[in-house]
C-alpha cells in the first residue's frame, strides 16, 4: 500500500438569485454626458466581485459607448437611488438590470432627437462603441457629436429605472411559496490526495460547472468561481472558529487557518449559460453558489480515496487519522505498509 491515496468525488447544487422569499427592488439613474460619456448613479459599490465593471459594460452596451467612458457614482444614501444591499447574489441581477433599463431610457431619449435631426425613424438607429448610425443610410457620427446635437436641441438625455424581482413569502405552516424568480445550478468534481501518515488532504483539481445565466464578464465569473471554491476548500479542510465557554481560542490568523497559495488546486471552470427569461439582461449570478458544492465534493473524494466518510467539517488531519485508525481494513493496510517500509529501511541500513 502506498502512503498517499488519491480519489475523486462530485457534488451538485442549486441556489436562488437575489433576496429570498420577498419582492426585491433596485433603482438607477443614467445620463448620456458630454463627449459621449455617461454617468450612472445607483446605490452600490464594489465589494470585490467586479460589479462596477459589470455595470459599466451593461451601461456601455445599452448606450452605445465604451465601458471606460462610464462613470459610476458613489454609493451614498443621500445622493443616489436605492439599490439596497451588496449580497444575496443580487448585484448583477438586480442592479445590472436596473442600470440596463435606465440606460436604455436615456438612449431612447437621444435616439428620438437624432432620428428627428436626421429625418429617419428611431428604430433605424444603432449605437455601439462610441458611434451612432442609421441603418440603410450613410449617416454615422460619434456619440460625442450626437450628445452635442441632442443638447443643442434643448434635451438632456436622461433615464431612470427600477427593477423588480418577484419572490413570494413562504407559508408559515408548510413553507409553500415561490422564493425566487431565477435559480442557478452547479456541479463540481474534486480530486484529492490523502497522506495516510499525516492525515493531510491536498485538493489537486476542481472542475466547476456553473450555470450563471448570460455571462457579462466571463473572466469575472471565473474569478468568482475560483474564490468560492477556495473558501469552500477552507471550510472543508482547515477553517474552524472555536470557542470555549464563549471565549475564542482562534483569535488571530496564526490560530484560524486560511487557505494560502500552496493549498489551491488547479481550478477548471466551465461556464454554462442558461439565459434568464424574466429579465432584460438574461444574466443570473454566481457569487454565493460557487462555493456550495465544494466541501461535499471534497468529502466524497476523500471517501473514494481512503474509504472513510467525514460527516463533521472540517476534515482536519487529526480527524482523518482518527477515522483511519477506526477503519479496520485500512488500519491493517497501513500497519502492513509500515511494517514493509521498516523492513526495507532496515535492509538498506544493513547494507
Amino acid at each position, binding site marked *: 500500500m502506498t502512503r*498517499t491515496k488519491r480519489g475523486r468525488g462530485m457534488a*451538485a447544487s*442549486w*441556489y*436562488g438569485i437575489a433576496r429570498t422569499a420577498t419582492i426585491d427592488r433596485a433603482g438607477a439613474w443614467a445620463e448620456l454626458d458630454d463627449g459621449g460619456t455617461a454617468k450612472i448613479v445607483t446605490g452600490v*459599490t464594489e*465589494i*470585490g466581485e*467586479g460589479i462596477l*465593471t459589470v455595470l*459599466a*459594460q*451593461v451601461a456601455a452596451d445599452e448606450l452605445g459607448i465604451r465601458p471606460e467612458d462610464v462613470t459610476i457614482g458613489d*454609493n*451614498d444614501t443621500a445622493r443616489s437611488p*436605492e439599490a*439596497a444591499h*451588496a*449580497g444575496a447574489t443580487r448585484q448583477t441581477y438586480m442592479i445590472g438590470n436596473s442600470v440596463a433599463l435606465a440606460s436604455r431610457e436615456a438612449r431612447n431619449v437621444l435616439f428620438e432627437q437624432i432620428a428627428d435631426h436626421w429625418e429617419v425613424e428611431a428604430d433605424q438607429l444603432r449605437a*455601439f462603441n462610441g458611434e451612432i448610425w442609421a441603418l440603410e443610410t450613410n449617416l454615422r457620427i460619434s456619440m460625442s457629436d450626437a450628445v452635442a446635437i441632442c443638447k443643442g436641441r434643448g434635451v438632456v438625455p436622461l433615464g431612470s429605472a427600477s427593477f423588480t424581482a418577484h419572490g413570494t413569502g*413562504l407559508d*408559515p405552516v*408548510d*413553507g409553500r*411559496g415561490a422564493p425566487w424568480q431565477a435559480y442557478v*445550478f452547479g*456541479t463540481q*468534481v474534486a480530486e484529492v490526495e490523502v497522506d495516510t501518515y499525516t492525515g493531510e488532504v491536498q485538493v*489537486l483539481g476542481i*472542475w466547476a*460547472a456553473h450555470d450563471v445565466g448570460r455571462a457579462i*464578464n466571463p*473572466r469575472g465569473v471565473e*474569478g468568482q468561481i475560483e*474564490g468560492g471554491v477556495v*473558501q*469552500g476548500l477552507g*471550510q472543508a479542510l482547515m*477553517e*474552524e*472558529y472555536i*470557542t470555549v*465557554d*464563549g471565549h*475564542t481560542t482562534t*483569535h*488571530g490568523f496564526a490560530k484560524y487557518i*486560511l487557505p494560502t497559495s500552496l493549498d*489551491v*488546486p488547479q481550478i*477548471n471552470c*466551465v461556464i454554462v449559460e442558461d439565459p434568464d427569461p424574466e429579465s432584460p439582461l438574461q444574466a443570473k449570478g454566481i457569487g454565493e453558489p460557487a*462555493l*456550495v458544492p465544494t*466541501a461535499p*465534493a471534497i*468529502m466524497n473524494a476523500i471517501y473514494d*480515496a481512503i474509504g472513510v466518510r467525514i*460527516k463533521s*467539517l472540517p476534515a482536519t488531519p487529526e480527524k482523518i487519522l482518527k477515522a483511519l485508525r477506526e477503519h479496520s481494513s485500512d488500519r491493517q493496510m497501513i500497519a502492513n505498509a509500515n511494517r514493509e517500509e521498516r523492513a526495507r529501511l532496515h535492509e538498506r541500513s544493513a547494507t
Partner: protein
Amino acid sequence: MPKMKLEMEVNNRKVVKETDTHKRLIDFLREDLNLTGTKEGCGAGECGTCSVFVDGKLVKSCLMPAAKANGAKIETIEGLAKPGELTPVQKAFHKTGASQCGYCIPGMVMAATACLRENPKAGIEEIKERLGGNICRCTGYTKIFEAVEIARSVVAGEAPAGVLDEDEPLGESYIGHNVRRLDAPSKVTGRLKYAADMKLPDMLQMQVLRSPHAHARIVSIDTSEAEAMDGVACVITADDVPGKDGFGVFVHDQPIMARGKVRHVGEAVAAVAAEDLVTARRALSKIKVEYEVLPGLFDAEEALKPGAPVIHDYAPGNVVKHIPVRKGDVEKGFAEADLILEDDFSTQQVEHAYLEPEAGVAYVDADDVVTVISPSQNITHHRHMLADIIAKPINKVRFIMSPVGGGFGGKEDMIYQGMLALAAMKTHRPVQLNFTREESLIASAKRHPSRVHYRMGLKRDGRITAVEFSMLSDGGAYGMSSEGVMRKAAILSCGPYEIENLKVDTRAVYTNNTPSGAFRTFGGMQAQFATESMMDMAAEALDLDPFEIRRINMMKIGSLTHTQQALKTASLDRVLDAAEKASRWEKGAPKVRGATRQDLDGPDTRKSCTLGARIAAEVSGAEKGQRSGASEKTKDSERVA
C-alpha cells in the same frame, strides 16, 4: 508621548520626521507619511497585506518597529512605478483580473515583485511558495498566479512587453466580453482609499471597551475617570442613545452597546473618542464596569432544554426562528422505499476573514446630517435603523459605502456604525474607528455552525421517495441574519432534486457564543453538504454512479421545488454533463475505487506539494543542466565544441 527623530529614504525621497517612539514601520508609513497603500490586515505578520521593501528585502511592516528602520531605504507600493504608470507586475494583475476587493493586492504585488526580482525566471511552484505568506480571501489565488506568470515571462524577456496591454478583440457587444476591471489600476497601485485610510481634519480616534464575559448583568458603568483624562473628547454607553435602541437584519434585538447585560465575549460595552489612539486605549482602562456573571449557554441543543438560561427576554425558549417546509406525505414515501438511510452531519463555525478589518468614519455635517462612511454591505437598511436609534428623520442620516475590502456577508451587520454616529453627535467632530484583527474576530458574525439529522428513502432504481431533514444552528448571542439563513437553508435543504414527500425543519437558537450571521451561501452550503453526502452514500448502497443517481432525481423544467414552486428553467442536466465531461469522469459507483481509477492525475490537476519538493526538483534539474544560466551556457559551448 516620547518622540524620536527618524531619517529614511522612502520611495527615493529623503524623509526626516519626528514621531512617537512606539510606532511600527506600518504606522510611520500610514500615519506620518500618508502612504496608505500599505494595508494592515492582521497586525501579526500572518497576512502579508503590509509588505514593503526594507533595504531591498521584503518585510512585513507590522512586525518592524519604525525605529529599527531608521537609516534604511524603504520602498512601498506607491514607489514601484512613476505616477500614472504601472510596473509589469501591476499591469499583469490588471490584465488577468487578479484583484477583486483589492485589500490584499498591494502586499501581493510587493511579494510578486520580490519573487521576480530575486528570480526573474521563477517557475509556478516557486511563485506559489513566494506568495505563501500573503493571504487573499477573494480570488482563490488562481488569477494572481496567472498574472505573476505573465509578468515573469515579460521580465525574463520570454515575451514582449506588449502582451501586458493586449486584450481579446471586441465583438458586437460588451456583454460577454472580458473587459478589464476598471477599478484594478487603483488597487494594484494602492491608491484606492478604504475607510481606515481616510483622514479628516480634526478627526478623533475611537476605541471600544468589550465584554470579558459571555453572559453577565451589568451592575454599573463608571466612566468619570476616563472622561476626565486629557485628550478624551467623549465616552459613550447605551445611556447616550437618544432613540429606540436596537438593530439586526431581521429582528432588532441588538443594542449598539450592551444595555443591561452582555450576551457574548467581545460585545461592545462602552466607547471612547480621543485625540489619538493611544489616549483612547488608555482611557478604556479607566472605565469601571461591575458585572454580575450569569450562567452561560454554549450549546445549541442545551438552548432548547427546559430550564436553560434565557438569552433574550422576548424569546423565552431561545428560538430565533423555526422554518418548516412540508410536501407530500413522508410516511407514505418511507413506506414505499426499498432503502432508508439515516445519518447525522455537522459543520463548524467559520470566520469571513476578509482582509480589511471593520473600519469607519462618522461626522455631523453643516446641515446636521449624521454621516457614516464605512464598508457596510447594506447602507439602505443601516440608514433606516440608525435613524430610529438616534431619533432623527431619515434624510438627516446619511450612509456612504466605502470600498469594501472583502465582505462575504460579514459586513451586513451594523455592529459599530451606531457608536461612531453617537460619538460624532456628542463631539461634533469627525470620529474614526478601525478594528484590530482580534476585535474583528470576536465581534463580527460568523457562518452558522449546524447539525443536520437526515433520513432518506429510495427505491432500488435510485429514485428518492422521501426525505426528513432537520437542522439545528447556533445563532449565538444575537439574531443578526439567523432568520434568513434558516429560511434559505430550508428552501434549498434537499438539494436540486424533485422529491415528492418531504419534511424539513430548520431552527436557529440563541446561545452566548459569538453571533452567527450572513455568510456567502446563507445556510445553503451547510444544508447541501449533508444532502450531497447522503446522495453519494445512497449511490454506493444502490451501486449507482454518483452522476447517475443525481440525474435520476434532478429537477427539470416544470419540476415542483421543495416549496412547490414550478420551475420555468432548470439547468442541472447541463451542468452535470459539463462537469462530467470536463473532468473526464470514469463512471462507477462510489465504492472506494480511488486505487483503480484511470481518470486521476490528468493535465488539469496540480502536482501534489511536499516539503522541499521544489528544491529537490530544481537541484536535480540543475544537475541535468536544465536550470541555471551557467549550465545552459556550458551546454551551448559543448555543442559548439
